[in-house]
């Protein structure tokens, strides 16, 4: 199969087309078709893991075909150690998310299914595209389904949240579009070849100076909004609180990673000099995000909002890792993206399960759940522990590598970030205590049902990965190392070349 990436990307679209033709009456048929599509997509993506050559730093399973040759636009897909795990995370989370929507999405399941599957294509396209033009199309296209998911299937204040989400991200993206065009013309003017092809552009050494800085900032703004980095985070709590469970899971699990992925894929190799120059600023924002997110989480009364702010904290760790520009920080950052997708995804899944039972997300409405739903409480605890970075579970692996990476380049940032792990324990354990421990204080909580078979099927795979990555992370990190090493070398040599260029032209 030479077209495995195209297949993985577009099977969901195909599924969406099939569902479009299905009769509206039969919800079950729609649900099963959607689920089957996502499971097939996941199955198709598995060979990427097994047949991926961990020793090769380059893009693998590459597909390239001219699309608009006059403008240097091509259909170019490929996967490397940086995107591999994120692609797998996306295809892995999708079936679970759909299972979680089974009953929680109560109306317009058909439209919902089509939206979700198109979203999946968009997300996979973002991670796989190696042409800036193609990337931008996927990047923007993916916004629309998420906008609809929040705006149609969301909570009472969904329209405000959806519009805030799309306007905020669009503003960031527009600047990125300008920067992409600028890069296109700069490269064209310098080399005579006008192309949007990422590997070609990545070889081009942009002179250091204002142009590089501005381009970096334009890209960085788009990604910082997406991550979201402090202080561009305020759309996230609103979006999460209003989004339905599947929306939150995908938003936290995959969409946020596009920001951090964007830094890695574009900012670092395209603008190495600016990356180095702005790294201290990124550290600062990352560390503020880590602590700020944790503190604000602590005092939330709504579980979903708490988890949303905890994402700001966790993603702060990832950004910190990426800008260390050493193998520990980068590998840690990549694995932490996966970890965050799993543990925060699982947190949202569990909050969703609670919401389905009690129709509330307020911490104060719970209490004493262990007596009523012990299995769910136990899994909830494991997920919380994973999120707070307990060694032996996945979160620790990423966090520790990131901190080791940061410790080598910026001691103070590392120390402050390490303090973040104290606060992570505070907000998670305090929330957990109020929700799960204590006596049952409300009558409505007394008759809750424990996990159903469907819910076990949703949570068990996530739990398995939480343990697997925690105990044997080498299975995953080894796939990323070659690409990470190559990226670091590329950044360093290019930065040196840029500097040389700058010194020659006063």
């Amino acid at each position, binding site marked *: 199969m030479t077209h495995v990436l195209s297949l993985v990307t577009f099977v969901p679209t195909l599924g969406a087309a099939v569902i479009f033709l299905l009769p509206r009456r039969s919800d079950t048929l729609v649900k099963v078709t959607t689920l089957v599509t996502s499971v097939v997509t996941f199955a198709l993506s598995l060979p990427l893991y097994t047949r991926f050559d961990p020793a090769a730093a380059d893009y693998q399973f590459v597909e390239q075909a001219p699309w608009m040759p006059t403008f240097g636009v091509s259909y170019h897909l490929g996967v490397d150690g940086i995107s591999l795990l994120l692609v797998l995370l996306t295809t892995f989370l999708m079936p679970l998310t759909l299972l979680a929507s089974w009953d929680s999405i109560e109306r317009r399941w058909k439209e919902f299914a089509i939206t979700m599957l198109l979203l999946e294509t968009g997300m996979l396209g973002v991670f796989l595209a190696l042409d800036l033009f193609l990337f931008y199309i996927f990047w923007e296209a993916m916004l629309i389904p998420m906008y609809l998911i929040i705006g149609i299937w969301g909570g009472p204040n969904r329209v405000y949240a959806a519009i*805030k989400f799309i*306007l*905020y991200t669009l503003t960031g993206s527009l600047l990125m579009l300008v920067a992409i065009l600028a890069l296109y013309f700069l490269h064209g003017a310098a080399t005579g070849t006008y192309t949007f092809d990422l590997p070609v552009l990545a070889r081009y050494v942009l002179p250091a100076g204002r142009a590089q800085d501005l381009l970096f900032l334009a890209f960085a703004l788009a990604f910082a909004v997406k991550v979201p980095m402090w*202080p561009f*985070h*305020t*759309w996230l709590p609103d979006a999460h609180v209003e989004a339905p469970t599947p929306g939150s899971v995908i938003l936290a699990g995959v969409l946020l990673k596009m920001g951090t992925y964007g830094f890695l894929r574009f900012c670092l190799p395209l603008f190495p000099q600016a990356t180095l120059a702005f790294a201290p600023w990124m550290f600062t924002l990352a560390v503020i995000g880590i602590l*700020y997110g944790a*503190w*604000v989480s*602590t*005092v*939330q009364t709504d579980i979903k909002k708490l988890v949303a702010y905890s994402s700001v904290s966790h993603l702060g760790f990832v950004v910190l890792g990426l800008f260390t520009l*050493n*193998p*520990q920080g*980068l*590998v*840690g950052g990549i694995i932490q993206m996966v970890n965050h997708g799993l543990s925060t995804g699982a947190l949202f899944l569990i909050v969703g399960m609670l919401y389905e039972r009690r129709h509330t997300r307020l911490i104060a409405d719970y209490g*004493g759940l*262990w*007596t009523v739903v012990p299995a769910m409480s136990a899994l909830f605890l494991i997920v919380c*522990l994973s999120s707070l970075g*307990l*060694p*032996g579970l996945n979160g620790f*692996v990423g966090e*520790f*590598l990131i*901190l*080791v990476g940061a*410790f*080598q380049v910026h001691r103070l940032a*590392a*120390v402050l970030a*390490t*303090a973040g*792990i*104290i606060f992570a*324990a*505070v907000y998670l*354990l*305090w929330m957990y*205590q109020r929700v*799960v*421990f*204590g*006596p049952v204080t409300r009558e409505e909580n007394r008759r809750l049902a424990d996990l159903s078979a469907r819910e076990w099927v949703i949570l068990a795979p996530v739990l398995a990965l939480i343990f697997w990555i925690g*105990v*044997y*992370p*080498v299975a995953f*990190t*080894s796939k990323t*190392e070659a690409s*990470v*090493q190559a990226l670091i070398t590329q950044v360093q040599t290019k930065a040196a070349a840029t500097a040389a260029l700058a010194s020659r032209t006063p």
Partner: protein
Amino acid sequence: MSRLVWLIPFLPLVGTLVNALFGRATGHRAHWVAVPALGLSFLVSCAVFLRVLHGETYVGELFPWIAAGAFKAAITVQVDQLSAVMLLVVTGVGFLIHLYSAGYMHDDPSYARFFTYLNLFVFSMVMLVLAGNFLLLYVGWEAVGLCSYLLIGFWYEKQSATDAGKKAFIVNRVGDFGFGLGIMLIWTTFGTLDYGAVFANATDAVSQGTYLAIALLLFTGACGKSAQLPLHTWLPDAMEGPTPVSALIHAATMVTAGVYMVARCHKLFEMAPLSLEIVAWVGGLTALFAATIGLVQTDIKRVLAYSTISQLGYMFVGVGVGAYAAGVFHLVTHAFFKALLFLGAGSVIHGLGGEQDLRKMGGLAPRMLVTTVTVFVGAWGLAGLPPFAGFFSKDEILASTFHEGHIALWLILLLGALLTAFYTGRLFLLAFMGAPRMSREQAHHVHESPTVMTLPLAVLAVLTVGAGVLGVPSAHGTAFARFLSPVLPFKEAVHGGVTALALAAVAVVVAASGVFLAWLIYGRRPVDPAAIGVPRTAVHKLLLNKYYVDEIYDALIVQPIYRGSLWLARVFDPKVIDGLVNGVAEMILGWARGLRRLQTGFVMNYALTMLVGAVAVIAFLLFAHP
């Protein structure tokens, strides 16, 4: 030995998994899984110990764990004299306490969950002890903290229990913050985390400041785990957990991890002598500080908790003055007599139907003979009177402190010994002697505990009596120190002769006076329970309030952070940050409203605008680029 070693953690892990996954099936038979798992683990530990006794050691790797670039850490175990001793204590005392729990916890509805956690604890503690590198040590370190959290809050419906569990975890995380940074600094300094390589490379090539930083960061972790000043506050609250847990985790094993770690890393500490000085002083001050609080506690378990903090302080003084083997020996004997005391207290609590208040006890001796005799042995050991083990281990620490020239510290420890003997005597007299002070109904129910509980008491009593043999000083040091000498350096015959005898005599006199004082107050005539635990003087009030440390932390740390967070969440985030975001949106909306007015729809207006624009452009071109 290789395959044997892996069995030691593996067996309790299997026990954990079985009871966790099939707890509903095992239910009240959970101990049939958990207790044999640990018993076997103990037997394997004995076998391993015998091999070590014959000079065999082992370092082995199971699989690579975390790796990125030059950073590598594997699942590596290391068995040497030190870890072999620790293994025996952890699995041996652990086994006895598992056995005891089968009786103590038998009526608890969450019986299987209890044994799941207990097995998980032993697994984690064994990994901590066996770890062959710092990262795996950290894993065990945090994992035992998790088990502590789970077991303190085991009775999860009780707010005070879950609060205490959370507090333990968070205070330990504060310590681990330092510990984690210490590990990072070790890696950036030495490029490896394996014990062997790190200790071999610990030479003068690295600056003393770095060593000091590493040592103090590691010691921060030790302060958290071993409840030393200023991170001691969680341990007394940890008494909310079931009593076997207090015995195993919060007295015999987990809390001694800090002492073990400092002994293990003594090479790093020795490279910065100031760090050892700090260790010794923190230990000494904690020993005295906690002992003073122990004087006035009325809850039988809290007396023992403060006593544990205090005794851990003695161990830190031991390792701090370079008498590593003495510190570790005290760790071992303390594990015996303190586990014994806790289990004895548990037996009393069991016999009194849950009563923990010393004021409502008294006169238990005739009704609970085995418990009384064994607790008496334990108390004798804790008071440090000869010829029990506690005497030898404490004397060794006192003597080393004296000989290393730390006279001030020695005096502090001596004062601590007086207080220790006093509160131990007080505890024993109040609980077992005199007239019964409990309600008539309680008095009627008082009964000796079943054999499954008294048997561990008896075994621990025998150990408390007999283990001293290993610590009898001689011209060549103690047998215990000689055994540990491949790992922990010891100075041969630093003390002996007349001075040693005189020092020992002083220690005995001090301890005996403490007991005598306790008898004067609580033994000579019947006590008035209403007068105990009521503040009489300012000092007494200070002690009853534990020096207000909790209150100070709350006012200086917890509240400011909490209030700050509230402000961030309620004011700064919505008003300032989101205010800016929405402000920008409003502003654009405002511009749009303004611009809309330009779209009048009158062609003449547009024509005029075009004319003005054209004139402006021409003017600009003419004047700007002449």
